[in-house]
């Protein structure tokens, strides 16, 4: 059974943004890159899978279960906007997540915090954009679920720190779960992907194994450029 199954999913926002008849299926045990320019529908797709928004039409199932309350325990979502409250310290944010999600692993969170060089006593509002992203990533990866959705996890961090964050993702990844990572920074991150999905104007234009792309002599970055050439 597929881990994730989307059938003909459409979601319209005002204007042209959204998704237009998207169907796709993902297997367990993969790191998948969701690639596309800004406004192509990456965040919409992730919010729908996470159950934070509802499609106008079509169905989304995680492990065969339609997205809803029941799939909340199957999906960990790292949104592109922080979910923490301004009064919180790093330790409060962790406690909040631990209270909220029964699958939250405090030990894993502790390891990740120290790996990310985050201090439990740091107020979340005092964190730089990059540090704040590291906190969000810590929170999202500390849950034990079959499906992780990371929306632009490395957008705000400098290139050196990107390497560290990729390390954390690779290290924390367990082979029986699937990780979907959206990004427009293809070059820095493509080496961790098994598979890429290219999305453009709310439609999937390509879903392929990365090593197959490379075998055909055209890497991910080049494919990305070709598909999204203006």
């Amino acid at each position: 059974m597929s881990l994730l199954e989307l059938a003909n999913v459409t979601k319209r926002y005002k204007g042209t943004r959204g998704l237009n008849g998207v169907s796709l299926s993902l297997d367990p045990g993969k790191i998948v890159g969701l690639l596309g320019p800004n406004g192509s529908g990456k965040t919409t797709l992730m919010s729908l899978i996470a159950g934070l928004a509802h499609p106008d039409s079509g169905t989304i199932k995680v492990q065969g279960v339609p997205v809803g309350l029941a799939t909340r325990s199957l999906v960990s979502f790292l949104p592109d906007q922080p979910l923490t409250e301004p009064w919180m310290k790093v330790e409060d944010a962790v406690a909040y997540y631990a209270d909220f999600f029964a699958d939250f692993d405090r030990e894993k969170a502790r390891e990740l915090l120290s790996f990310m060089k985050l201090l439990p006593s740091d107020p979340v509002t005092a964190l730089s954009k990059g540090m704040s992203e590291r906190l969000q990533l810590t929170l999202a990866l500390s849950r034990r679920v079959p499906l992780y959705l990371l929306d632009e996890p490395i957008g705000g961090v400098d290139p050196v720190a990107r390497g560290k964050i990729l390390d954390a993702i690779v290290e924390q990844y367990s082979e029986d779960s699937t990780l979907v990572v959206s990004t427009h920074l293809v070059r820095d991150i493509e080496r961790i992907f098994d598979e890429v999905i290219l999305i453009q104007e709310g439609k999937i234009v390509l879903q392929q194994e990365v090593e197959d792309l490379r075998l055909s002599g055209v890497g991910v970055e080049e494919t990305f450029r070709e598909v999204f050439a203006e």
Partner: protein
Amino acid sequence: MPIEFDNNLPIYLQIMTHIKRQMVTGALQPGDKVPAVRELASELQINPNTVQRALQELERDGTVESRRGLGRYVTSEEGKIMAIKKEMAGELLDRFLEGMKELGFAGDDITAIVADAIQTKQEGKGEEV
């Protein structure tokens, strides 16, 4: 990062070459344990599935051997290292010959140039190349 990958070539092939090179240079000795998938994945910052595939392919061609429950080990078979050296030398030669062809050299010219270069080096260093 210990190796720079070419993103336009399959990474599992590059990992295979990386390990074979370590065997040829002696960084990995016959009978040595090959690092576990996890370990290699985080060392190389590569997806564990890709590392797994590289190691499986190495196992298939006899470069490494799997011991149940213990992990993978570099083959102790004598001929294997020599075979890998020949394979790598072959690749170097192919590239060299192609380059020379582009420059307009062929056959005996190339042999003469190579012989000349080896001689010059020997005289310069006073030792064998």
